[in-house]
């Protein structure tokens, strides 16, 4: 527990140091702070005893904060949250180093906010208390809004405000739902308690009609964060306007809070609601995949393209989660980590060329393989990871998500019935084709082709820190760990899959029963009759 708090609080301490210390040393202080956080978390992960079961550790309840409301300082990780926290902590130092040349004004504030952002993300993943989770979850908005609004592009304030308000609106519903479940616990037991496990136990006992609403309210909150179509419009704007490192953390860590929320709250707490709504959410996820992919196709702004691709990719992740079987869930969790790595890396790559050319318009800049071969190699690698090329990390998650969707309706065999099925996978699979299409078009414009550079070198000259033509050592040092992680996870996903598996099963513990109920209830609807028919014919 001490290590967890160290990893959460150390960045904050470093943030104070940054605020007090001289401007020159701010970036190194920040770097040290994030490294210390990562170090503490790594030591924790090294000694983590629960890699192979669904338990969380440490199991002790933290000191009470607000006893009358049952709010405690309880932190602890299960494997999924630990992986995601590690991912965030891993990306933090990289982002800080990645900002060395990009951020030349108001550096102290920048690094300060970045540190605070990092610690609140880790807090959200580490929290075992729902309110503590909410604190981390919600507070990420503050630094992120400021990072976008201060250091972003030309429309930064609009983007920041939209991001803030949109996600704030969503999370208010989530908060109300959390308190509602706490209230149900209070009714049942007589005392408030926001321990996540306790809340889960309480919520699963609620009648299914209540769970329906609980689930819907959770989804409103998390769907905005994920973001799920049609609640995604804040994301492209925010990504487009955010500074590079902001985009990286936004895509890699903050969006994961949305999917993590589904994993930790919406799905296990309201299984009946999840069962009732799974096809609805799945359809939205599929629409997100196709819709965002098509939009990516016609984007000329490299960053917007990656932003929309995040919408599509996380649509797939959600689809995997809502396949409601271990395959899909496992794939989805894996995909959360993968998406963090590959999309984060892509944003870093885009940022690096943006720092040199001051434009992200693929119609203006292109053919950079000639100018920046090292950069181009990384870009190609991460794009391929993002496309889901087998052997790289993206594939594992993508394949399992789709596979989970596909086998969802094969009840009785996997032990996890579902209502999705081949057709969902077929339509979602089109997204894979589109992904190849738009990402290769991006590559084709940006990396390959004849060299195109903007003519005005004025912007180039004004850049405070002169950068070499190709990547410098620092930039290579940022991208290399990401590349290694991408390749390693692609070739050796087994340890991580094994670690995720028990958690995925625990998340789905109540689903077989609830889905059965849902299917028997809706036996009269057309969808169910199709499902019924297939299972009948299988039975023959």
């Amino acid at each position: 527990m001490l290590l967890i708090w160290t990893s959460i609080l150390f960045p904050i301490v470093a943030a104070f140091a940054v605020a007090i210390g001289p401007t020159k040393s701010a970036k190194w202080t920040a770097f040290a702070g994030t490294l210390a956080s990562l170090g503490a978390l790594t030591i924790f992960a090294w000694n983590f005893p629960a890699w192979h079961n669904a338990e969380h550790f440490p199991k002790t309840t933290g000191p009470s904060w607000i006893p009358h409301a049952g709010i405690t300082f309880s932190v602890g990780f299960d494997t999924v949250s630990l992986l995601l926290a590690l991912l965030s902590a891993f990306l933090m130092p990289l982002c800080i180093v990645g900002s060395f040349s990009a951020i030349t004004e108001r550096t102290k504030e920048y690094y300060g906010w970045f540190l605070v952002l990092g610690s609140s993300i880790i807090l959200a993943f580490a929290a075992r208390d729902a309110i503590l989770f909410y604190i981390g979850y919600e507070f990420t908005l503050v630094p992120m809004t400021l990072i976008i609004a201060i250091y972003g592009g030309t429309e930064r304030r609009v983007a920041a405000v939209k991001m803030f308000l949109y996600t704030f609106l969503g999370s208010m519903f989530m908060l109300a739902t959390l308190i509602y479940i706490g209230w149900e616990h209070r009714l049942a037991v007589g005392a408030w308690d926001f321990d996540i496990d306790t809340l889960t136990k309480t919520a699963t006992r609620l009648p299914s009609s209540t769970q329906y609403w609980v689930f819907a309210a959770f989804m409103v909150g998390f769907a905005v964060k994920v973001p799920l179509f049609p609640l995604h419009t804040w994301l492209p704007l925010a990504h487009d306007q955010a500074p590079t490192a902001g985009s990286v953390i936004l895509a890699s860590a903050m969006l994961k809070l949305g999917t993590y929320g589904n994993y930790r709250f919406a799905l296990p707490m309201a299984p009946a609601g999840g069962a009732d709504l799974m096809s609805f959410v799945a359809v939205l996820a599929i629409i997100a995949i196709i819709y965002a992919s098509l939009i990516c196709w016609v984007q000329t702004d490299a960053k917007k393209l990656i932003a929309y691709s995040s919408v599509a990719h996380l649509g797939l992740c959600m689809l995997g989660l809502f396949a409601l079987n271990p395959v899909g869930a496992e794939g989805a969790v894996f995909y959360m980590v993968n998406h963090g790595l590959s999309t984060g890396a892509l944003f870093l790559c885009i940022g690096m060329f943006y720092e040199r050319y001051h434009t992200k318009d693929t119609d203006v800049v292109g053919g950079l393989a000639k100018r920046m071969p090292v950069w181009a190699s990384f870009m190609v690698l991460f794009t391929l990871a993002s496309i889901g090329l087998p052997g790289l990390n993206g594939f594992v998650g993508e394949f399992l998500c789709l596979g989970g969707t596909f086998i969802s309706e094969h009840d009785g065999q996997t032990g996890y019935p579902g209502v999705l099925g081949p057709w969902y996978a077929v339509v979602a699979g089109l997204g894979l084709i589109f992904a190849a299409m738009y990402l290769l078009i991006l590559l084709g414009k940006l990396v390959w082709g004849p060299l195109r550079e903007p003519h005005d070198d004025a912007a180039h000259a004004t850049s405070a820190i002169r950068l070499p033509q190709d990547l410098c050592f620092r930039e290579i040092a940022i991208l290399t760990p990401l590349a290694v992680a991408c390749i390693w996870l692609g070739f050796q996903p087994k340890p991580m899959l094994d670690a995720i598996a028990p958690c995925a099963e625990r998340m789905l513990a109540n689903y077989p029963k609830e889905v059965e109920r849902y299917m028997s209830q809706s036996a009269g609807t057309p969808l169910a009759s199709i499902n019924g028919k297939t299972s009948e014919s299988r039975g023959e």
Partner: protein
Amino acid sequence: MIEAMSPRLILLAPEMILFVAAVTVAILGLSKNHGIRASLPFITCAALIASIAAVPLTWTNENAQAANLLLPTLGRFVKPLLAGVGVLLVLLSVGSVDRKMEESVARGRMAFDPQRVVRGEFYAFFLLSIMGAMLLCNAQDLIWLFLAIELVSLPTYIMVAIGGSGNRNQEAAVKYFFLGAMSTAVFLYGFALLYGSTGSLQFLEIRSALAAQSAGSGIDTLATIGIVLILLGLCFKITAVPMQFYAPDVYEGAPTHVTAFLAFVPKTAGFTAMVLILSCVGWSGHTLIDTDGIRIPYTGLPTPIAAILWMIAILTMTLGNIGALLQSSVKRMLAYSSVAHSGYLILGLIAGATAGIEALYFYLLAYGVMTTASFAALAAIERRGEEINSFSDLAGLRLRHPVMAWMLAISAASLVGMPPFIGFFGKIYLFIAAFEADQFGLVLAAVLNSAISGLYYLKLAIVPLVAPPSARSEEVTSVPSRWPFIAAVVCGVGTIFLSAIAGTLIGAAKSSAQASPMVLTASQEALPTASTH
């Protein structure tokens, strides 16, 4: 009689301290000595701090029980709350009252003229108003309640008029005064009707009378209308619909330090009065008689009162928030925000005895700290000697006054309910209280409203921190006095620090909100009769 009086008098020790101090500052304000005049705010502070210290010393359980109060421990939390926030409010006003005159005197342009000095009066009224609010906690009948409310109100009218200079605060004063007088008449009429229905002015007796009515055929029309009129009249104090219309004008017109005062002290007084009145009604033991004559007991206030409060709550928060959206004046926006927060606070009133009152007071504490933070930040800066009004004055504030810019941002974050600031915990606890009272609809409304409020609070954070400086904001300077600055920093840090000890604070609020054992027995007596009927 003497035996009954003395514990009550002991309980009034904080008020007495304040009274003595009020008299003292009023007199010392006339002193020719500049040092003495300058020390007035600090004397005020000292008195307030002394009164805080006096509360735990005097407010023992025996004294409280002997005092025959409806909510015998209420003062234990509310009085330090008022005095504590009062200290910060005093710091806000340092250097503002009589500023022009003092400057002229210091430069030797004019001689000291005791007839024109208002500083002593100002602090005296300041202390008297807080004292009035404190006295409310000791109220045991309607007369006391009425006098205490008037003691809160009358000084504020004067403070608005004399706190600053110029036409704006006089316009604010006239509006505040006249509309305040009207609202006083309204609740006074309500008092009369309540008295007519129950036949007593004593809260405990009113409580039993109403309980008896409730156990009979329900609280009668006269009492209901009376209570509703009282609540509506008090809505003026808490800036709630339909009596909130004055708030934007008065808050904008009044000098900033007085605005901060208005946003907190009368509001606390109003809510305390409402809590007392509603405690007489009680949040339990009411029944509904259906067409077959069968009684169905339900929790919460009697239906018509609850329904009206329900509508008031929703309308208040909604009108406050959507009104704030349109504003280009910071103070006006904060006025609407104050209205909106009253709307949230009414959740606590509706939730009532189970957790509502403590949630209400905890939220008032949070609100006091965070709204004072924003007003203090505004009070610490000025533009060409005029106080800050429009958002364009604040644009790019961080360049010249980074700390104030941050304090504005922090207070905005806290006001919007962003964790981990104190406003978030206040809101959460209010929601918890509302859930305890089964008020899901209200929580939903509050949630939606919180989201809407993000629209304008964000502006309060983004404009100083992010927006490029405008031509107007280039001229923004610090006020000569450093105390508003200090107050802002204290409040800003407080919004974070207090959330760390939120558990303790809620505990204190909870223990102070306990009803008198006599009240409890009264309501318990009422219930069996209700069920046997």
